[in-house]
């Protein structure tokens, strides 16, 4: 059993490519998380403009990308767009797909955060002479982010986990490399190793999240 699922020889042989995969996963996360946050921040700030012509398209945009499974969006970009003469490559498709999908999620979270800051504070800040942008940057956003911190961390964890779908379009991240090693060695050890790497990397975040969530609930009483 150990020979099959935890073959040390195979781990040693597969280690360099797993490590490469891990680095790609880390790099990819460092790219797509900020992309999603920026997209979300734009959506959230636009939603503070209470104009029906802006409000409904925004809700439609967010719901559209929340309803679309991210893998479907990715395949659509990767396998569909070339027919329109648009070849974005695996990396470009992943970046755009994540921007659209996770931006919608971050947008909803940040919107809830902004709405949790009492309107009186915004009026007070504006009446002391701060501009709209200053009010947003110095008064609203710091509190908004604090109020929805558990949701932000939780979504970021989901985004990092989601980078594993990039393996489907042959981007050489951790899962892809593990599957390559598995198909060469005919042994599931590399996938087990990849799962352990994911777990060790993300477990601290899960623990932190449990703590943040419990504190948020305790704060409600």
């Amino acid at each position, binding site marked *: 059993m150990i020979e099959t*699922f935890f073959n040390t020889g195979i781990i040693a042989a597969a280690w360099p490519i797993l490590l490469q995969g891990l680095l790609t996963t880390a790099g990819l996360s460092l790219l797509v998380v900020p992309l999603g946050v920026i997209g979300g921040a734009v959506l959230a700030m636009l939603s503070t403009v209470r104009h029906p012509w802006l409000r409904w398209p925004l809700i439609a945009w967010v719901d559209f990308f*929340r*309803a679309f499974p991210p*893998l479907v969006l990715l395949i659509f970009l990767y396998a569909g767009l070339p027919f329109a003469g648009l070849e974005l490559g695996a990396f470009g498709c992943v970046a755009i797909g994540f921007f659209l999908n996770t931006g919608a999620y971050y947008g909803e979270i940040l919107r809830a955060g902004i709405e949790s800051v009492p309107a009186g504070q915004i009026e007070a800040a504006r009446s002391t002479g701060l501009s709209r942008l200053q009010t947003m940057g110095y008064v609203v956003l710091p509190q908004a982010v604090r109020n929805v911190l558990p949701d932000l961390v939780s979504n970021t964890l989901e985004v990092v986990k989601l980078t594993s779908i990039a393996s489907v379009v042959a981007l050489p991240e951790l899962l892809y490399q593990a599957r390559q090693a598995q198909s060469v060695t005919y042994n599931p050890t590399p996938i087990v190793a990849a799962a352990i790497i994911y777990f060790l990397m993300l477990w601290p975040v899960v623990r932190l999240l449990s703590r943040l969530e419990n504190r948020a609930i305790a704060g409600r009483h």
Partner: protein
Amino acid sequence: MSGWDRFADTFLNTAVMAKYLPNIIDGFILTVVLAVLVVVTGIAAGLALAVVRAFGVRPLNWLIIFTVDLFRALPPLVVIVLLYFGLPSAGFSPSAFGTTWASLSLVLMAFSEEIFWAGIIAVPRGQWEASRSTGLTFWQTLSAVVLPQAIRLTVPPLTNRTIAITKGTALGSVIGLSEILSQASSAVSFSFNPSPLMLGAAAYLVLFLPVVVFGRWIETQFAWKR
């Protein structure tokens, strides 16, 4: 041919769509069945774990917490690939359907346990003590006093999480489960035309857009009192 005609001929080709519509419908039905099964087993298992955790047996709780952490930390696609390509080496070859069902259920179990547990501990201690002192047993307190309140608190987060995990049925395409995405992709490679993908995308919107809108409504109905 104008630009629009060429676009329509490529992406909205009615002949290709008509040909592959039955396949997409098959995929749609499979996706719905799988999604319903995942929701039922995942939430039931999560609730069961949360109830067991409420009994406060230390070693058992550590095991529950570890299992929950494990399936919150692992990407669902990794779980699917691990079970599908790993289990045959242990002498058991699960079907693509069974693998996807089990994997997504485990993930939903982990998330829903965490949410139910948060709901249970959100019910003030005093209520436990009061119910117990009126003569209710531990089990009666849990099922008649605590859970009804806990579950009400958990509806909005649970709805959103369930939607997110149910969308993971598309991951089954990676191991050859013939759900919507997989049907659409193979139709694209057979016809060399992307119209089936448009059809597949439409199928996903038909399936999940109402659910997302319903989730939004649930959120306003059961909003946490801040």
